[in-house]
């Protein structure tokens, strides 16, 4: 599956996107965050505070208990600051 990162979350991870294959027991956004956070020190830093992680599945907002499937586009970003 494809994971995208934006703004300072991308700066911390050091990648704007990556393809990952999480294990089958990683099924929700919250579980994915915990799994991704182990991938590198940068990932760990990017996900250090889960309360300010915003997530979208296929470009729609998703909460921590939302489930994703293998072909989904999952994006992680900080709270938005447009306007």
């Amino acid at each position, binding site marked *: 599956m494809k994971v*995208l990162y*934006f*703004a*300072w979350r991308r700066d911390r991870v050091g990648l704007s996107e990556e393809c990952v294959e999480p294990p089958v027991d990683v099924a929700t956004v919250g579980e994915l965050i915990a799994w991704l956070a182990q991938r590198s020190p940068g990932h760990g830093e990017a996900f250090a505070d889960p309360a*300010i992680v915003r997530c*979208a599945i296929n*470009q*729609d*907002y998703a909460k921590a208990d939302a489930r994703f499937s293998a072909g989904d586009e999952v*994006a992680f*970003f*900080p*709270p*938005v*600051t*447009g*306007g």
Partner: protein
Amino acid sequence: MIKVQREDFDVGAELAAMSRDRENVGAVASFMGLVRDVAGPGELSAMTLEHYPGMTERQLQRLEAEALARWPLDRVLIIHRHGRLLPGDRIVLCAATASHREAAFEACAFLMDWLKTKAPFWKREEIDGKSSWVAARQDDEDAAARWQTDEQSG
């Protein structure tokens, strides 16, 4: 109508187009947001807006549909720029047209409040050669919360 673009826009032309040949429209309300100089005189300051292409358009279209469903409007316009902007540059234009002003004013305020908390844009400020990401504001969350309907809470 939704426009997400790097280039500037002509406010007069955009607003005039909204009510052209629409004889039932008696009110055009609009809001325009500009880049403020946060650095102060003498220090170069700029702002770069990043966004999530695809999701931005999707969220703004949803916002437009929501405004049209909630108020008796004729048209809605949202233009949002991205890329590097300088103090005084236009960032965003929201407008709503209706028969009467109440709906147009309210819809315009709603569009901006929701856009601020839902449209996936992020600002990075450059002050004196250093750049840093702008932090989200609780005020914006509070302003958006007043438009929440019962079915959306929780």
